[in-house]
């Protein structure tokens, strides 16, 4: 069930208050994030759009605990994380966050199934349990028969599906995807969109940074950023409402 369909307002999976992130000093100082106020409820799919350099990826990194904000608060599953130690942040990522990157970031020397099982092994699961979970996920993303292939033997779309399967390995509260179709051709993009849509339908909380309107259209809500700030918010209903929803859809 989607959050926007729920009669009761659930505890947000992600929440920020006055979030700011600065790079550099003096005249060269850049405000990558500027007073971001955001909430993502369980099961919600949120798309973040905006021009290059507007702070989308930085927002995603801060939400996932990969970077620390210069100011403001970040809450994940009701726990404030902006002051946590690196060790605690690592534990949080293991348990609560799955990442999908534009460049896939698969380990080149590991097969598809070995890549997918890695987060479970890092979380301390037994090798057998990690392997079974990885096999299930590869089945789910339609790559069971490619499990023993190295990334170099997979197409771009297949690599990104492996990366998505890896992100789901520890059943995270939220999947943070950074331009998941940025390196893919049209056919592969469609494959990944279908997969993201199925995750959304299954109630997986998603935050997707994208330039691609078709990807954004799969979300429940779209926010737009410019110069580090949120400048627009649109609630979508899968291709039937909202400005983007009218323009694009999976069937196109």
């Amino acid at each position: 069930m989607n959050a926007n369909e729920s009669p009761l307002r659930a505890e947000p999976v992600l929440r920020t208050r006055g979030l700011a992130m600065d790079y550099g000093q003096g005249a060269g100082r850049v405000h990558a994030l500027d007073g971001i106020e955001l909430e993502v409820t369980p099961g919600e799919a949120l798309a973040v759009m905006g021009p290059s350099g507007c702070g989308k990826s930085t927002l995603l990194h801060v939400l996932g605990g990969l970077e620390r904000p210069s100011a403001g608060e970040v809450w994940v599953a009701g726990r404030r994380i902006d002051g946590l130690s690196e060790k605690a942040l690592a534990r949080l990522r293991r348990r609560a966050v799955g990442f999908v990157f534009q460049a896939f970031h698969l380990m080149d020397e590991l097969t598809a199934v070995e890549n997918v099982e890695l987060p479970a092994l890092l979380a301390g699961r037994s090798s057998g349990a990690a392997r079974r979970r990885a096999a299930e996920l590869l089945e789910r993303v339609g790559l069971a028969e490619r499990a023993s292939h190295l990334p170099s033997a997979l197409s771009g779309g297949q690599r990104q599906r492996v990366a998505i399967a890896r992100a789901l390995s520890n059943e995270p509260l939220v999947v943070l995807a950074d331009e998941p179709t940025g390196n893919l051709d049209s056919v592969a993009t469609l494959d990944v969109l279908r997969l993201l849509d199925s995750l959304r339908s299954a109630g997986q909380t998603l935050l997707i940074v994208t330039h691609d309107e078709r990807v954004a259209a799969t979300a429940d809500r779209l926010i737009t950023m410019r110069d580090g700030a949120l400048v627009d918010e649109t609630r979508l209903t899968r291709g039937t409402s909202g400005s983007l929803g009218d323009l694009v859809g999976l069937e196109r």
Partner: protein
Amino acid sequence: MGRVVLVARLAARDLRRRPGEAALLLLAIAAATSTLTLGLVLRGVVSKPYQSTREATAGPDVVVGGIADRAGVKALTGAPGVVAHSGPYPVVAAALAANGHTVVAQTEGRDSAPAAVDQPKPIKGAWVQSGGVVLEAAFAEALGVSPGDRVTMKALDAPRAPGAKPSARTRGPGRSFRVAGVAVTAAAPPYPEPACLANLCQGDADTGLAWLTRADAMSLAADKQDVGYVQNLKLADPSAAPSFAARYNPPPDASPRAGASGPPPTILQPWQDIREASANLVKNQRRALMTGAWLLALLAVASVAVLVGGRMADQIRRVGLIKAVGGTPALVAAVLLAEYVVVALLAAATGLAIGWLTAPLITEASAGLLGSAGARTVTFSTVGIVTGVALAVAVAATSVPAIRAARTSTVLALADAARQPRRTGWLIAISARLPVPLLLASRVAARRPRRIGLAVASIAITVSGIVAALSAHADIADGSNSVRADRLNQVLLALTITLVALAAVNAIFVTWATALDARHASALSRALGATPQQVSAGLSAAQVLPALAGAALGIPGGLALIAAVDPDSTTMPPLWQLLAVVPATVLVVAALTAIPARVSARRPVAEALRSELA
């Protein structure tokens, strides 16, 4: 010409851009070339001074010695081939006390008038006179006495057979003598080699040589049976001395007849044997230095290979740029090789200079020979060998990465994606069952098996050197010659420190190169939930595991090295020392790698992942 200038310019700029790495390369190769130079310089350091001393002192071709058998010794003056002689001279074993030391001295009674054969040459003071003693130069230096000082001498029981130990029992009240002079001779090797005139003393004893007048020498002897006799012979053909000696010496399997009735047989010692014995002190040091030099050269190859490999990981985009602007693969390889060849040549020059400058620290031990102090000579062959080794180290270590870089696709190089990690399936499968730090360590190690091989080799070479040094120490501890032990200990200590320092630098290189190479995998592991501590421990363990293997291999390697270098006298170090080497190595490597591993593991994840996209 323009191409050569371009190669030189690109190589020079890259070296200037990374002065720290260039300095480390220089250090690694210079350590090997310095040691090699020292070993090569010592090769000719004794033979020439011995020859000079022989000429200056009318050195004997054969020294004849016997206990209480003046007639038997004298009988050889008429042997065929003998053209001149001096003696027989009486020899009395005495305990000589000076400056708080008491040591055994062979005291030879000589005439004040010069002898036709073996006339020791005073280099300080004068020749023997009544009441005055002349000491062999290296012996005087070890005792710290000069002409004008006084020494006390008491007779000892003389050995009853050539090669037997003199008794520690002294006889009589002892006499005080003024040191009249300090002299050199070619009839006996310089102290601390035992001054055994025709083997009239025990080989391993700290025995020096002193000269008195005949009357003074005889006054030390309480019993005629304690007096030995020495005669110096000149032959018509000095090169025939070994065969002459062999003709009159007792058969090699005849045991000394201590306590048997009748005088023991006379012993003849050819000058070639004395020359050989004169080189003993430096020979051991030279052997240690040459062994150390080859170990250091091997270690330098490992250091340079690791450093170059690490630089390639960092430099691959630069290679792409050179090729993108029109550089051919040959040009790329030439630039990379030129950098290391320049460093190697500088290291060769540094090594030659250091070896030449430090040689006197070792050659001064041969002060008992004329011209020893100035005997260091860097010959063309030394320069050639040292330069050749330095270049070989550089070329052996850099040619593979240079050719690999030259062959790299320009597009891949520009994308900085050329160095694909290796996949070791069985290790990946096993590592899934290990705790997270070991899982990461195994996978990091498996990505670059060549680098791990170099790390294992580096530690194995170092531990082999340490085990060989421990064995040499154990051998020294068994002996009694403190001067010789001190000299060899100093050389071994210097070699061990150099080996360990170079291995330490190597361990840091390897960790740095591994961390650099694994930066993406480390960042990704952290993004997927590994803590910085787990990543840091993994990087460190990736060095510690090869160190463990290297240390385990180094122990038999060191024992094999000892057996190869000195098959005649192999002394095993104490077992506890051998066992302690392994954990000590692992602890040192863990400590050395902890800091670079920690620094690398704390690099911001987002930055590392972003840089992969740049």
